[in-house]
């Protein structure tokens, strides 16, 4: 049957961007800075929202936008874990990519205003949280005390080191705690897993919102720790990940219960998560 060219907007067709910079974050995480070939960002995102990135002809993958710098660029920090990301890690500055979005609900940046913020991340889980952390610093007066607890397998695997060790600790009323899984000769910081370190630091739940992202197993333990420490279900926010294809709540696979991570999530409060099956 003949297929006609159409003028209407197909949400599954990406816009084209150019990679204007690539930065090695860790041995297996790179940041890709992209700008629309027509200039500017391909779309505006709120912290925690997602973008579907395609590398022709290899594939398409959903990644959180780790930062939007005004109308200059979108930054995606992407870990090399499979076929698509393996190829992505081989591209060079100047490469053209497809990007569509923004997808998902993003973090409740408005509702968190006036609160103390506690960010808890593991590994590449800092990538989505970083957009919220940087948003808080950009609108510093809207948020109160900021605490960041972040852990990775090793020192090398800690993402965004310049911010973690240099920029963020110098921000007003801000504490950054880092930990790695196993001791290393050159590391004099904390050693141990994130949930245990969190309980050690034991930030008081009073007036606080906790935002959590990391591997599913870390999230599950951190949520338990926070509950133990007295955090209420509305005080805890997490951002989830599932395999995604369409990004618009149609293709089916990213459901947790009757919710679609790409559309209704990826950000959920613990109160919302408790109503959903633990299938993530």
């Amino acid at each position: 049957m003949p297929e006609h060219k159409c003028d209407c907007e197909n949400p599954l067709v990406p816009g084209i961007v150019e990679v204007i910079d690539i930065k090695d974050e860790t041995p297996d995480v790179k940041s890709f800075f992209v700008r629309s070939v027509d200039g500017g960002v391909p779309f505006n995102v709120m912290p925690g929202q997602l973008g579907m990135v395609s590398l022709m002809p290899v594939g398409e993958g959903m990644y959180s936008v780790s930062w939007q710098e005004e109308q200059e660029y979108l930054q995606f920090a992407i870990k090399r874990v499979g076929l698509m990301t393996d190829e992505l890690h081989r591209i060079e500055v100047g490469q053209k990519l497809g990007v569509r979005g923004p997808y998902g609900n993003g973090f409740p940046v408005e509702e968190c205003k006036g609160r103390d913020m506690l960010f808890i991340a593991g590994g590449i889980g800092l990538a989505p949280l970083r957009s919220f952390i940087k948003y808080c610093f950009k609108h510093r007066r809207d948020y109160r005390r900021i605490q960041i607890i972040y852990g990775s397998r090793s020192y090398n695997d800690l993402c965004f080191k310049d911010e973690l060790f240099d920029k963020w600790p110098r921000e007003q009323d801000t504490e950054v705690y880092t930990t790695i899984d196993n001791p290393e000769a050159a590391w004099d910081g904390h050693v141990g897993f994130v949930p245990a370190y969190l309980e050690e630091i034991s930030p008081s739940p009073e007036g606080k919102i906790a935002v959590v992202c990391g591997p599913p197993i870390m999230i599950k333990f951190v949520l338990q720790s926070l509950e133990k420490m007295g955090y209420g279900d509305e005080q805890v926010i997490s951002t989830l990940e599932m395999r995604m294809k369409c990004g618009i709540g149609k293709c089916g696979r990213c459901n947790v219960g009757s919710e679609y991570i790409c559309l209704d999530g990826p950000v959920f409060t613990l109160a919302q998560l408790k109503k959903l099956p633990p299938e993530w």
Partner: protein
Amino acid sequence: MQILSKSKLNAALDLLSRQAELFVPLARGEESGYYPWKSYQAGSDQLMLDALNVMLPPKGVVFPQTERIYSFTGNDKGVEIKESFENHDPRIIFGIRACDTAALDCFDDVFLTMGYVDSLYAARRENTTIIAHACYRPGDNCFCAAMGIDPTEPTKADVIIRDTGDAYIWESKTDKGDKLTAALSSLLEDREAATPEMQAFKHQVDYEGVAEKLKDMFEHSIWDELSQTCQTCGICTYVCPSCYCFDIQVKSWGDEGYRFRCYDSCMYPEYTQMAGGHNPRGDSRERFRNRFLHKLEFFKERYGKPLCTGCGRCIVACPAGIDITQIIKQIKEADTSAGA
């Protein structure tokens, strides 16, 4: 009322086939499904208007098994979207039953509501006219009424036909239906005919309260037993008129290619397999549970109706004899007191 005599059926189908691509239920070799009337081969094909359900549902008319989204050229120098595809060809589905129109109703919910309109689906759907065939004699595996469907009044129909023995009552329901009625005016007669009598359902199913009960049954041991024989072959999703899950894949040669979508199945482990290894539904029990919860609970929570329309195809197709009506029954009977 308007009547289409069965002696004029072929003439009517020929006429409709000149208006648009006309899909009719046919038995073709060992398969049966909705095929273009213009591909009908007397002798090897058999028109299946009297069969309650052909094996393959008509969903492919509005949601093809594979469908191109866009074509591109791409290499390390540049990327260009060449063409974005959309199909506006007029189509008619003839003889579709109420269970299958109800499934299209579910498709409309998924593809046309909740934030985004799927333009590929919308283009095909808008240009599709539905001539539905009212059912009065439920088959052995039919249970549409239990799922809230009136088999004699198919929803989403532009025309409803009702079999009176030697003729069909022809009822136009929409403007689209009126257009086809006008096109067929030379073949339609204006006379009275008795509406057929509704026969009793042979298969008694009680879905009442199942969606609500399932809310507390995610961790129930019933899923261990129920899923034991499932081979996760995915045939149930393929023959299901309301299963819509799809994959997006790429086909490329040199610097050119196109991205397309195709049917997927929640029964396959790859469906939720993430790069890096994590799979939230890695074992068959989890996939089986998700499929039935989606059908009987999740979809109803989201769209207000179950994602099963009682057509009974999966009951016939399943190589392991898994029967969704038995599952509904066992859910109804399950002990959900603490510890069960």
